[in-house]
């Protein structure tokens, strides 16, 4: 009873809440980091150093008027932010934050579930998320969102393929689709897959930037061109859902990159006798540190780079990333067979 019901439910509650808090504080972190890059202070007024800013933001968004344009498609308009948000949250079900640990004399695994097609689950669920953007653009019945949703679908097609191909080469290395097995494979290999698969790693990261609509690939919401893009017509909490979904997706991409390429909860060069002392740091801490590095890079890139243009983005996807990913996959397969 406790093992089958109470513990999983507790884990779900903890992960869900931790995620939502992390997402809101991601927003603050982004504002702070970008401010420091730009020699500003960032939010300073709400709480010491602005630490309560996310709460103030949330309250503001909740009490704002929630407008539905008269000519919008009501149901789709309402459903779109939900379709965006839900996939971003349910992905966390298969992300392993740590191995099995004993807690109060009970064996507890630091992940909600370990399904044997974990990676496939992630790929499929995150693909659903972009429907939110496409539907939002369509349902708004407005020209800027329409252009944005066209961009979003083009972007999705270009980058989903490249990202999935890099995942396949990781699967070849690990011989499994389960997220926990992939981490264990890196334990047995004594090295993170990021070092064996550097091309896949880089392609995955660039593709990840594009899939989460982050700069320099934030075309669907390009403020300077499309006045906010797909969420032009949204306000209040529905806008907030899109906003949070974007940050939740960033965390998802960071977690997946950590798990696949940086050994998940493992310390550097795992299972090496000389580096045993690194195991003093709890496993989940390793995971969080690595994910944080990725998130920081996401923000750093946004603060530094200009935005790609629509056609250039497509060209980068189809002419550079996909061929690279295919070559990488073929080479991986050949090496795997030979060894």
């Amino acid at each position, binding site marked *: 009873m406790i093992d089958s019901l109470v513990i999983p439910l507790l884990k779900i509650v903890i992960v869900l809440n931790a995620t939502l808090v992390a997402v809101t504080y991601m927003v603050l972190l982004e504002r702070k980091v970008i401010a420091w890059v*730009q020699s500003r202070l960032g939010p300073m007024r709400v709480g010491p150093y602005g630490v309560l800013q996310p709460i103030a933001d949330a309250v503001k968004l909740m009490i704002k008027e929630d407008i539905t344009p008269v000519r919008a498609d009501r149901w789709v308009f309402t459903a779109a932010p939900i379709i965006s948000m839900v996939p971003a949250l349910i992905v966390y079900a298969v992300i392993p934050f740590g191995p099995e640990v004993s807690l109060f004399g009970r064996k507890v695994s630091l992940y909600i579930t370990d399904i044997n097609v974990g990676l496939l689950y992630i790929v499929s669920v995150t693909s659903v998320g972009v429907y939110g953007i496409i539907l939002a653009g369509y349902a708004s019945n407005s*020209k800027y969102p329409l252009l944005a949703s066209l961009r979003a679908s083009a972007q999705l097609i270009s980058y989903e393929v490249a990202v999935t191909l890099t995942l396949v080469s990781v699967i070849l290395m690990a011989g499994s689709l389960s997220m926990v097995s992939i981490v264990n494979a890196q334990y047995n290999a004594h090295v993170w897959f990021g070092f064996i698969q550097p091309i896949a790693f880089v392609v995955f990261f660039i593709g990840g930037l594009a899939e989460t609509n982050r700069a320099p690939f934030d075309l669907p919401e390009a403020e300077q*061109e499309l006045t906010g893009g797909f969420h032009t017509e949204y306000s209040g909490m529905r806008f907030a859902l899109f906003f949070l979904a974007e940050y939740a997706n960033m965390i998802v991409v960071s977690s997946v990159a950590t798990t696949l390429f940086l050994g998940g909860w493992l310390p550097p060069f795992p299972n090496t006798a000389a580096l045993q002392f690194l195991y003093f740091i709890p496993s989940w801490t390793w995971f969080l540190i690595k994910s944080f590095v990725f998130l920081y890079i996401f923000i750093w890139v946004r603060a*530094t*780079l200009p*935005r790609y243009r629509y056609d*250039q983005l497509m060209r980068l996807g189809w002419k550079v990333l996909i061929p690279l990913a295919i070559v990488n996959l073929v080479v991986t397969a050949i090496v795997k067979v030979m060894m």
Partner: protein
Amino acid sequence: MQTQIHHGVMFDTNELVLNMGPQHPSTHGVLRVVLRLDGEKVVDADVVIGYLHRGIEKLSENRNWTQIILLTDRMDYVAAATSNLGYCETVEKLMSLEVPRRARYVRTILCELQRIASHCLWLGTHAMDIGAMTVFLYAFRERELILDLFEEFCGARLTYNSMRIGGLPLDIPPGWDKKVLEFCKIMDSKVGEYEELLTHNRIWLERTRAIGVISGPEAVAIGLSGPTVRGSGVPRDVRKDEPYAAYDEMEFDVPIGVAGDTYDRYLVRVEEFRQSLRIIRQATEGLPEGPIVGKVPRLIKPPAGETYHAIESPKGELGYFIVSDGKSTNPYRFRVRPPSFCNLQGLRRLVRGHLVADVVALIGSIDIVLGEVDR
């Protein structure tokens, strides 16, 4: 064309009419551009202006000659000092007034500071339009230093009213020239900082190279001026060709582009930062002693006649055409040739065939201020 847009007629079932502005984050004020799109490709663009029209030209005919200086502030409000200078020099030309050398030097310093401030604003917003938001804040940080210098000189930070017919309203405060030189030192390194972020950035290159290419002769034919025409390789600079203020005593180069695209216009303006700093240094170090106002009659009443005088504002050739009837204390006719307005004529030609994302890059590239376009 114009009337069809206002009646909301769809041109073709395949084309999308997109109304960009007057409330759009990247149209730099209240510019409205009606785009006809084929997918994301711009088939045609129609520029609609007039949202900031205040009738400054007509208004000037009912103000006395000194009061008009204040109105010129409100045309190109990001480069008010150059607008002041253009007007004051035109009236001085009309009255054949001699301006003391010190006043001419200080005017040169002010105008070049103003050019840097205006280019800072241009660089920041242009980069922001293309998505590089950090440059925006860096550029504004340095612009702030210039505004502080202006505040110390004349008390205002935006609309300076900093010149008078025949000279300057007041001498520079003590120690001001040292601060200007200090600023030059800071700015020198900061220009490199902007360039580091953009000039060799691959995305920046891809976004600006071969965008909005216009050949020299065509640019001249449309009437473009300033850095916009120099980017196309036309070495036209009023400061060199028809020197005014103290520019004939200054040593500086006029940077010109080769390709005539957005990237070359960017490079020209960035180089102008450096040339402006060079001029400011020369003028500040060689600042002569002497009076700051020439022999100006108590009642300014230019003799009957008309004159046209142009100066090089940060945006291009800023010309004033003034007619005086010789009897009243206000101009009979007051007409401005604003560089932003004339440069804006090129927008339609530039954006055709490009994508929506390039439209904002091109609006930024020709550097307009709507206060000057509409007047």
